[in-house]
């Protein structure tokens, strides 16, 4: 049976791992490769590396870091942050990344999804969507959550699927960094609109939050950063509890 995936996210700035609350007040907490190996050993199913400075400062994700990660770990990993072109995607995939996540660039140039998917296969293209509730619906935000595009998030996710993205990584801007739980309402809605896998992001604070995202909103994967990062929850323990709840998981 296909298992639900647990995905630690490592936010990267200048080659180091960082994580802040609502993308501000960053704390330095380690070497990404070291952390990646630890997560992989503990039973992480995939890893996501986000160069969080990339979009704001127009910096490319560090290719050298990707190469190091790829030689050290043997589970799939995604790289994101400020990727704007098919050429940049190719560079990252050649360096050893399995997937790239695209966020601001595909909002400005939706056709990039089609071009990238055609060139590298849909499996390599993750559409990252930062959504925030505005009145009775969710809008798509870009540039690290600082700019409202006015696009309806649910409609946008239907479009990324039509354009052949392989997966959606959906971050609730309302929940990100709060540890108050995933936005179950948003996640449930998305799963009614699309049929590609959805990774829930933003708000994980407890094991129960992960159970809820999977059982209530039926997400395919849960992503979190700080709870793993500061060892508030051990991945092996999380998986043990999910397994005991009857959720299909790959044992650590």
């Amino acid at each position: 049976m296909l298992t639900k995936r647990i995905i630690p996210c490592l936010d990267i700035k200048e080659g180091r791992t960082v994580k802040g609350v609502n993308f501000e007040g960053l704390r330095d907490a380690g070497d990404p490769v070291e952390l990646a190996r630890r997560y992989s050993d503990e039973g992480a199913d995939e890893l996501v590396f986000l160069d969080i400075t990339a979009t704001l400062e127009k910096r490319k994700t560090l290719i050298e870091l990707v190469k190091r990660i790829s030689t050290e770990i043997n589970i799939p990993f995604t790289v994101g942050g400020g990727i704007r072109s098919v050429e940049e995607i190719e560079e990252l995939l050649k360096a050893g990344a399995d997937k790239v996540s695209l966020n601001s660039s595909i909002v400005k140039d939706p056709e990039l999804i089609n071009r990238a998917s055609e060139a590298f296969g849909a499996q390599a293209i993750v559409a990252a969507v930062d959504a925030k509730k505005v009145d009775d619906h969710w809008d798509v935000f870009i540039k690290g959550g600082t700019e409202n595009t006015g696009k309806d998030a649910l409609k946008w996710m239907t479009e990324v699927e039509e354009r052949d993205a392989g997966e959606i990584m959906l971050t609730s801007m309302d929940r990100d960094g709060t540890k108050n739980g995933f936005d179950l309402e948003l996640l449930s809605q998305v799963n009614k609109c699309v049929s590609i896998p959805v990774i829930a992001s933003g708000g994980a604070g407890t094991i129960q939050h992960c159970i809820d995202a999977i059982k209530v909103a039926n997400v395919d994967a849960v992503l979190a950063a700080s709870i793993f990062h500061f060892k508030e929850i051990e991945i092996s323990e999380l998986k043990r509890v999910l397994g005991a709840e009857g959720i299909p998981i790959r044992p650590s």
Partner: protein
Amino acid sequence: MIAIIKYKAGNIASVSNALDRLGAHYYFAQSAQELESAKAVIFPGVGHAKTAMDSLKELGIDEWLKTTRKPVLGICVGMQLMYEGSTEGDTKGLGIIPGYLKKFDSEIDKVPHMGWNTIKKLKEHHLIHGLEDKKHLYFVHSFYAPVSEYTIAEGNYITPFSAVVAKDNFMGVQFHPEKSGSVGSKVLQNFLDLVYSQKK
């Protein structure tokens, strides 16, 4: 040495890194001539079947593959191209293994089949020697090869499909052993053992 086919549809960095971790010697091959000096061949592949097949043809590797007697391990799209064809882009395959690839029914569940899943051994084969059925492997694919007499292990997602196939010197795995942690490494090690224990 092992030759890794380097063409447009290969995830060659992941495969070569995995071989590095196992201490295996390899080189990248981009022509039939370069493949000739290999002890065995790894035929990786990601993305669209048609793109992959076109790239193989461009390099003139397709004909070589059809007739080689060397051990060949196809991974994901590499395995898929060993079949007669795929409904993906109406692609004609190498025709080494009988059968056609079909797309998973997205009305039933999410497509692609992406993530960690188990396989069920149907036959004994050195490639999956020592692999327990409860172990998970990493899959990413939208098209699948139906179970046939050449299937040595089946996966199950929406429908049973060929997760591991073997015919003569040709072997294929639908999952990504290079991305499947220690279980995947075991499969690659089995392939290496099979290659290096073979008599000339």
